[in-house]
């Protein structure tokens, strides 16, 4: 039986290796300067006054893909919320207050607003420089958890009404869909970037709907990460199994 399993692994591995080698032989050269798809993507993004071509691909030319990625994150967080809920044989303890050294606490409280602003900056400049909704949203959500690191879980819970974040997660997903449907109502295709004027190249208000979609993604990711971490923190800090179970 063991030998059979090894053979199966060997055959599968050999097949995978052969396929990978065949695929690698057909790849374009490493680090080439020209690529047929790249040239077309850059042309399209320049035509729509979006300085960051990656954002143009993510939120304009392939905005439908981003919708799929957003639903993956939404569904994953939903699954975690269901799995990590408080079970019947568990109970909640108050988190113990923690004594953190003063310089560390001051640093956390000082960096928290800086990190929040950086997150918003990364979201807002998604169409101009590297970054966008996902990156900025994660940074903003991480910033909030400096309260847990610099003080204690009770302090974080006071500024984090979980219901608000759950609602804003859903609202952001809806906003993305509504923006897509709006272009259908305007007479073009779903999520086509034809609603708004393209603006002046390389300014904050350029790129048509790209900044709006970026903002929706930023809100979705930030709330999703906060909700996800909240359930992990609840499990790690507050929820205890009943004795004798």
């Amino acid at each position, binding site marked *: 039986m063991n030998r059979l399993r090894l053979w199966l692994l060997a055959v599968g591995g050999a097949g995978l290796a052969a396929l990978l080698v065949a695929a690698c032989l057909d790849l374009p050269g490493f680090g080439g300067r020209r690529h047929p798809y790249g040239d077309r993507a850059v042309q399209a993004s320049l035509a729509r006054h979006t300085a960051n071509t990656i954002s143009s691909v993510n939120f304009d030319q392939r905005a439908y893909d981003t919708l799929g990625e957003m639903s993956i994150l939404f569904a994953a967080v939903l699954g975690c919320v269901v799995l990590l809920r408080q079970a019947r044989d568990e109970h909640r303890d108050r988190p113990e207050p923690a004594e953190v050294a003063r310089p560390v606490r001051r640093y956390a409280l000082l960096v928290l607003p800086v990190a929040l602003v950086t997150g918003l900056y*990364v979201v807002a400049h998604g169409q101009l420089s590297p970054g*966008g909704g996902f*990156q900025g949203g994660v*940074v903003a959500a991480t910033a909030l958890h400096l309260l847990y690191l610099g003080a204690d879980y009770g302090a974080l819970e006071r500024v984090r009404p979980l219901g608000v974040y759950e609602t804003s997660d859903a609202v952001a997903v809806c906003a993305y869909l509504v923006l897509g449907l709006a272009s259908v109502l305007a007479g073009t295709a779903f999520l086509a970037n034809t609603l708004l004027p393209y603006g002046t190249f390389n300014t904050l208000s350029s790129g048509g709907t790209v900044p709006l979609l970026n903002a929706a993604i930023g809100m979705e990711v930030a709330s999703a*990460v906060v909700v996800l971490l909240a359930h992990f923190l609840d499990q790690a800090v507050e929820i205890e199994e009943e004795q004798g179970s």
Partner: protein
Amino acid sequence: MSDAVIVVVLLLVAACATAAVVQRDPARQALVLSVLGVLLAALFTVLQAPDVGLSQLAVGSALTPLLIMLCVRKIRRRGRPKEDAR
């Protein structure tokens, strides 16, 4: 010659990823993983993909370690008797 930086970072990433797999203790794995995240961000930068590098930095430097370490803490606490956890 200008590819030297790419070679250096690629070698570092390969070594770090191997080290992360070889570690046995989850907490130590998380430490190596967070270093791997930073190195990967450098690799994406030298390959001229700063967007991907930013995503890697945002997720890998604080969020992933926090999730892993919270899980480790929960599991360790469950292993101990209740009075001892206090």
